[in-house]
């Protein structure tokens, strides 16, 4: 308790928010990975930029303080859902495919966002400096309000996953069997996509557009080396995500010239490398022992 007291209330709030977010990202990302849709989150993260820029412009027009987290996150959330819908729509057109649709939405959403951002940057609002941080993320400048929002969303995501854990696991490991016993596979897939999108939107302030996807991708990939059971992989991915986010945010606060996003990714990559070699189920060195 002395340690926590020494850090100050705001730091503790931010740390709890970051840890909860890493936890939710690992858990939600596990199901995206098992359904082979890990990179959709990358497109969603990039696709939030026009939403954030749009929310900023709208807030400025209405005379509100545009840096309010609720405004920006609201814009990001709407854009994320539109990106998901655009990918699904485009992927169903003949001769396009899921891969091309994902990359097209990613590049064009981000392009539209950049164009809108160049308008934002000419506004003399004075408070848009925070938007620059969104490229690579920063936990240091986070307001307690933002941390509460992130933490709250993470808890919500975890609660939803907990409620339908069994159904999600069945769909992830055996989609044919899941369909046979009457599980709504398409709806559960959409739920996973929405959960990942929520996590990515919440992760933008700390990890940034380019690297937010790493929180959803790397911890589950690392956890997969340790077990073949969905329940175990989810819990491990949540733990690795949480530890990576916390350690990365701490490193970025301690070291100079170290943005939070890259720091989190490299910590997660370390977990991944260790798991790749020593994971007990699928690790490279596990073959002989098992």
């Amino acid at each position, binding site marked *: 308790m002395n340690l926590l007291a020494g850090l100050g209330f705001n730091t503790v709030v931010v740390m709890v928010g970051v840890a909860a977010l890493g936890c939710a990202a690992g858990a939600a990302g596990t199901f995206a*990975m*098992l359904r*082979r*849709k*890990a*990179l959709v989150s*990358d497109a969603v993260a990039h696709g939030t930029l026009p939403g954030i820029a749009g929310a900023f412009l709208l807030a400025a027009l209405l005379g509100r303080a545009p840096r309010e987290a609720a405004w920006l996150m609201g814009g990001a959330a709407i854009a994320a859902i539109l990106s998901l819908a*655009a990918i699904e729509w*485009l992927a169903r*057109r*003949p*001769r*396009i*495919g899921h*891969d*091309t649709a*994902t*990359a*097209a*939405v*990613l*590049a*064009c*959403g*981000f*392009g*539209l*966002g*950049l*164009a*809108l*951002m*160049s*308008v934002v940057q*000419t506004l003399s609002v004075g408070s848009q400096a925070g938007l620059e941080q969104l*490229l*690579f993320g920063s936990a240091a400048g986070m307001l307690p309000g933002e941390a509460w929002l992130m933490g709250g969303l993470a808890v919500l995501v975890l609660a939803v996953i907990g409620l339908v854990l069994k159904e999600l696991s069945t769909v992830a490991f055996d989609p044919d069997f899941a369909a046979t016993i009457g599980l709504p596979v398409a709806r559960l897939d959409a739920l996973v996509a929405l959960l990942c999108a929520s996590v990515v939107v919440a992760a933008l302030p700390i990890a940034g557009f*380019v*690297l937010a*996807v*790493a929180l959803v*991708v*790397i911890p*589950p*990939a690392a956890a*997969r*080396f340790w077990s073949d059971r969905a329940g175990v992989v989810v819990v491990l991915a949540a733990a690795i995500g949480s530890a990576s986010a916390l350690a990365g945010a701490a490193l970025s606060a301690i070291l100079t*010239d*170290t*943005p939070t*996003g*890259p*720091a989190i*990714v*490299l910590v997660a*990559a370390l977990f*991944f490398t260790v798991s*790749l070699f020593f994971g007990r189920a*699928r690790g*490279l060195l596990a073959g002989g022992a098992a």
Partner: protein
Amino acid sequence: MSEFWTIDFVPLLAAGLSALACALVGNLLVLTRRAMAADALSHAIVPGVVIAVALAGVAGSVVVLIGGIASAFAASALVAFLVRAGRVEPGTALGVVFTTFFAFGVLVLEWSGLARTGFDVHHVITGYLEGLIWVGAEGGDGGLLATVATLPPVVFELALVLVLVVAILAIFRKELALLAFDPVFARASGLPVGLLEAALLTATALACTAAFKSVGVVLAVAMIVCPAATARLLTQRLSTQVALSAAIALGTVLFGYAAAILAPRAVGSALALNAAGTIGAMAGLLLAGTALIRARA
């Protein structure tokens, strides 16, 4: 008119050259469902470029291109290793490798001090076409050649890369087409698949790396994916698709750039939009519009 030559000509030329190189490679990448791999690659070249520039001390064209290609091959080999030896799902392997490479590149950039010497990582992502001003456009007394020589070096770099990309695609055009349409038959008939994959990877890495300093990674990805996918909706023949994609890429650059400059002027504003962004957005709108019309037809 002189304002056009000084301010608008070089950005248009740079974006056009880059878009052509990207769209031509993009045809094969879209056919083989590797659009997201191209996006991953465009981020994974960052550490190679940064380390090469830091070691060489200059951001010369050759240094940047060699660093980018080396990084692309390293990332690609690592993804293949994770998929084969580690049994990692391919999309996940791409995600792990490209975010790690990119994060490492950003940190090297920050720590080496390069970030403070004009090598702006924001511009790598967002593009900085607006920075390509042609100071010598007014022309001296040296004639046409001397005037051309005053163009910013990035134009020559992009032109060189376009020539290299076209050369690689032309040399292997039959083999690459076969590999794209029927990989099983291509392998069975004894084509040197490894060599072809390496050639395609080199061409992609060249197109992405050249886009790096001025055009931006985002525009490169948009131009790899959208013109080729749009052309594919309009034709089944590869040669027609390639020609169409090139025309679409150039048209998108022209109209996207014009929109960036003229749209704000239409509402009475003096500012200009990020041109790389408007070009990318326009490429996507064109793809969506074509998909909508072709689905009904």
